[in-house]
């Protein structure tokens, strides 16, 4: 379909996944992403795909591991507490070099937390979450259109680099309705000679595994994986630059925080403050170079997050702490207002109103 339709963010993910050739979905209900499961429950049986509500988020991620091992595009979705449950399974998927898509529509935490939006799983998504040395490709959409586009991208990148990809959305992205179009998506087919499809008596057996009891072998596996990660950092980093050409101050934000920040930036500009935005779209790989280069030109950064401040550390690291970085945060399900972001911009720009 290439005409625009009004869709909920959660449903846009599901539709884009199907158009990308994903025919297997395993999930479990949890607010605010249950629409993805409900959409898949309706769509998958009609196209000969699999929809299964698993007994838990743990079971779901292990079903994903199985289907991915057999060489098929597969996804699961959940929200923060459910994604915590999946961490062991995600580590296994990463350790077995398997592709898949995990969607986290974040809600307030920690613990049972709340059902309103948050961005407080940034650390979990980008710094591990599960045990061991590994990364996920983490994509942060900031519109319903991006919920669709990033889903397509996630499947392609996961297959290309043989690793799990995560769509890190927040409750607002999941619940909001915006026009979205699904351009002709060619479900990119990647050869998977490593998949456990059955030997058909024509080849030696394939083993999907992450156990390497020999330390030299395990070290080698880790190094090979990180060599792939280095290639991804080189080639797949994505970000948006907004009004940065002559900016003296830079706002760093992703997802809903970036949309709010754009409003504040436009207002700040109207008041004569030269401020711009760098919006990371890949949270891993983080656009370190973009921030590093910006630090040569701007006098300071403002990070806007729906958390107690997690991405701020990556901004400080990328800029080697050579410029002040002030946080503008809300958490618990609260969303920063454009006024709040504007106040933070004014604070760092030195004038007070």
């Amino acid at each position, binding site marked *: 379909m290439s005409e625009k339709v009004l869709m909920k963010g959660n449903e846009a993910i599901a539709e884009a996944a199907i158009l990308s050739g994903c025919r297997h979905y395993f999930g479990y209900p949890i607010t605010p992403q249950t629409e993805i499961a409900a959409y898949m429950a309706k769509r998958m049986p009609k196209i000969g795909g699999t929809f299964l509500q698993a007994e838990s988020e743990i079971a779901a991620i292990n079903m994903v591991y199985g289907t991915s091992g057999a060489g098929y595009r597969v996804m699961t979705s959940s929200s923060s507490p459910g994604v915590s449950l999946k961490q062991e399974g995600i580590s296994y998927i990463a350790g077995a070099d398997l592709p898949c898509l995990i969607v986290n529509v974040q809600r307030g935490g920690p613990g049972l937390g709340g059902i309103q939006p948050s961005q407080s799983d940034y650390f979990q998504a980008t710094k591990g979450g599960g045990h061991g040395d590994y990364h996920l490709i983490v994509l942060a959409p900031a519109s319903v259109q991006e919920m669709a586009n990033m889903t397509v991208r996630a499947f392609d990148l996961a297959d290309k680099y043989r690793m799990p990809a995560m769509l890190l959305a927040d409750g607002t992205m999941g619940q909001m309705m915006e026009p979205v179009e699904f351009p002709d998506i060619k479900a990119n087919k990647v050869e998977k000679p490593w998949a*456990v499809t059955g030997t058909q008596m024509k080849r030696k057996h394939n083993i999907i595994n992450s156990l390497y009891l020999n330390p030299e072998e395990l070290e080698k596996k880790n190094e090979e994986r990180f060599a792939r990660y280095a290639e991804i950092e080189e080639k797949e980093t994505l970000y948006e630059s907004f009004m940065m050409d002559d900016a003296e101050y830079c706002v760093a934000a992703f997802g809903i925080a970036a949309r709010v920040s754009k409003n504040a930036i436009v207002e700040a500009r109207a008041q004569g403050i030269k401020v711009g935005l760098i919006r990371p779209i890949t949270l891993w790989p983080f656009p370190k170079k973009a921030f590093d280069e910006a630090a040569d030109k701007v006098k300071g950064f403002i990070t806007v997050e729906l958390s107690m401040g997690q991405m701020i550390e990556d901004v400080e690291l990328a800029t080697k702490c050579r410029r002040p970085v002030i946080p503008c945060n809300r958490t618990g399900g609260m969303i920063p207002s454009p006024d709040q972001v504007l106040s933070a911009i004014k604070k760092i720009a030195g004038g007070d109103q």
Partner: protein
Amino acid sequence: MIVFEKPKSLTDVPLHYCPGCTHGIIHRLVAEAIDELGIEGRTVGVAPVGCAVMAYDYFTCDMVEAAHGRAPAVATGLKRATPDNIIFTYQGDGDLASIGTAETIHAATRNENITVIFVNNAIYGMTGGQMAPTSLPGQVTQTSPYGRDVKTVGYPIRMCEMLATMEGPEYIARVAVNNVKNVRNAKKVIQKAFENQVNGLGFSLVEVVSSCPTNWGMTPQKALEWVNDKMIPYYPLGVYKDRSAAKEGKE
């Protein structure tokens, strides 16, 4: 004329199991079933966490290593993706009846068309002999050094009896491998559990009452005697559910 030899579906890798460990017998019975049904080329096995973690080195078919307890979920993912393939799990008592209880029950209730081999030796072997959910009352293990006290840690779980009450699964059976007669019977039951999958009948689980000489602190021979004298009375052998046979009986 050869009347008994190693099955083709076992690799040449020497088994790492302890001398007299019944895993070796059970692996062979699974491989014999795969050979005799001619399904080696389309079988995928799921290995557990436990002594049999390296089962992926012993079978010639494609293999997947699963997280502890999650093999039925992994098998579900494999079966839904490749329904014409024969998917089996091979799990110990901790894997299937402790951490994996939910996965076991739900795969059974969904009548997932897979074959589950459940090796019950009433102990956690690989980690050095801790109490299992199937350890017997009074049984001494590393984590029940004064004997399993049912008052504080509860009673052992009889998985077959429990699963057989469910409407979902097709075939639930318990066998043992402590003597020649029982091994020959176990072979037939395991073959049926695979045949059921080939015929699309659904979830088939075989519990194999087994020994762990090393962690029971016995010789292989004494361990098999313990299976006979203590395990089998608590875990009686038999077919607990056979939906197709029951249907046929009614016709």
